């Protein structure tokens, strides 16, 4: 089960490829890859035949490297925090009327 490539079917990440990293119980797994690392129901995944060579609980960097080796497409993931742009920086160089 670990290292198997799957496709997310539900939610905003629907259609994105991910890798199973850890199995929590019969119905839940932890996924990573082109999606945010998260717990996911197996009913929301479509498993494929491809399997990557990974350890249990591999970090995101390890997963992404393994995906690179397998020549899978790497897309930008959703991260937790974005850099905030202050109003001063926004208006930098622009003159107010």
């Amino acid at each position, binding site marked *: 089960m670990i290292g198997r490539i799957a*496709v997310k*079917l*539900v939610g905003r990440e*629907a*259609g994105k490829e991910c890798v199973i990293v850890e199995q929590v119980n019969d119905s839940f797994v932890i996924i990573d890859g082109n999606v945010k690392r998260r717990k996911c129901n197996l009913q929301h995944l*479509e498993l*494929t035949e491809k399997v990557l060579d990974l350890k249990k609980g591999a970090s995101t960097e390890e997963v992404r490297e393994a995906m690179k080796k397998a020549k899978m497409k790497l897309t930008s993931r959703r991260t937790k925090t974005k850099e905030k742009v202050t109003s001063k920086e926004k208006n930098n160089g622009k003159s107010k009327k």
Partner: protein
Amino acid sequence: MPRPNKRSRTLRRVFFRTPGGTNKILYKKRKPRSPHCANCGKPLHGTIRAITSVLRNVSKSKKHPKRKFGGNLCFNCTKRRLIQESRR
């Protein structure tokens, strides 16, 4: 009598009371049909049913769910389509 073009029911009527106390009628465009799934025809969640002049001022995220085929297919049909794509 209202004007001949206002006598048909193509425009909907909105009654309102003016500050002076008289009742008046506003003639407004009717709402279009709500967005439906292109595959099965179910009404879609997370979409807005309004005329285009109103939709112009609404943010994009309020007009459709941020999902693949969001605003076009229902969740069930996207699921089926994504399964088909992955098995090819």
